[in-house]
């Protein structure tokens, strides 16, 4: 955390309703992405091409994999996902039970995927704790730097009890979606 905290003051926590109010007022229109994480708003104003390419590529592959089966799941790109009253993250990709609520509820999400280039520490740390705490069954972090995918499942309290790493080039076999396999050669 980078907030300078002195006794007597603290950063005020915002709620999802506050975040949406600001969003509708255009407060985030200059940013490429904005998320509310445990009451704090985080933004980025650029998406680098490496990230965008991996994002697009994996979205296509997940879509192909999903079409091969009969799961009651829908592919979402960067859905704002309401996990709790103070957290509205925007995973790069999600597979979720189809839901057309204005904001996708976290309870509909089966798999959340984050593509990480500069954000690996956040995605493996704070984000993993957040998704685990709110019971998202499976979570993948695509580590562009080290060319591997961190696959996590079985959320318990603040963490995922199970995890494995898959090098780019190998197949990722979903742990919680029976039979879903994604190729990663092009990442």
């Amino acid at each position: 955390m980078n907030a300078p905290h002195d006794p007597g003051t603290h950063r005020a926590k915002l709620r999802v309703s506050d975040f949406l109010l600001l969003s509708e007022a255009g407060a985030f229109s200059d940013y490429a992405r904005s998320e509310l994480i445990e009451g704090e708003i985080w933004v980025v104003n650029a998406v680098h091409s490496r990230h965008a390419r991996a994002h697009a590529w994996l979205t296509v592959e997940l879509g192909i994999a999903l079409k091969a089966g009969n799961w009651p799941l829908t592919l979402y790109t960067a859905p704002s996902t309401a996990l709790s009253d103070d957290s509205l993250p925007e995973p790069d990709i999600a597979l979720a039970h189809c839901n057309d609520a204005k904001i996708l509820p976290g309870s509909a999400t089966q798999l959340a995927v984050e593509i990480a280039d500069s954000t690996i520490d956040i995605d493996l740390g704070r984000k993993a704790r957040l998704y685990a705490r709110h019971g998202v069954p499976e979570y993948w972090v695509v580590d562009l730097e080290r060319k591997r995918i961190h696959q996590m499942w079985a959320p318990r309290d603040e963490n995922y009890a199970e995890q494995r790493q898959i090098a780019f080039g190998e197949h990722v076999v979903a742990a919680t979606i029976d039979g879903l396999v994604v190729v990663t050669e092009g990442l």
Partner: protein
Amino acid sequence: MTALQKWDEPRPVRLTIEDFLHLDQAGAFRDYAKTELIEGTIVAMNAQFSMHGHVQSLLFRRLADAVDEAMHGYRTWIEVSVAIPPADMPEPDIVVTRFEPSHGAPVPVETVALVVEVADSTASYDRTTKARVYAGAAIAEYWVADIQARSIHQMWRPESGNYAEHRRVAFGERVTAATIDSLIVDTAGL
């Protein structure tokens, strides 16, 4: 300016006064004793206790009397929001301003002659972050009444985000404003 830079690692958002007012109107800060927008971040203050109240009230009474006598057209107000566009809206403990009160309007920073913060646990915050905000907005003079150090840190001559001049006056002595003629505040009893 950050507006021209492009970054792809998440950063805490820098909110504007407009964002802050939207949230305030929607009741987002109902749970807090006091909130300020400081350098784009919403900062909540803890409850204030009796020593803070004592120092703030006594200083206010002495300062208000001195301002009425020495500064024609100026008013002394307690805990009023001061608008410092684009990303600051502090609520100083005491403000000396020539602004005409107006419904729904915060105090425009260019009307402010002197700001006072009373610090119980927040002295380092008030002397660093707050000083940077007030100096950056060219407020001519700023005092921090530091309860633990039992002294008033008096700062003036804002230059590139800092006060170039400062001195310390112990509680009980007289504070003579550095930038306002004949404004003298007796702090006996603090």
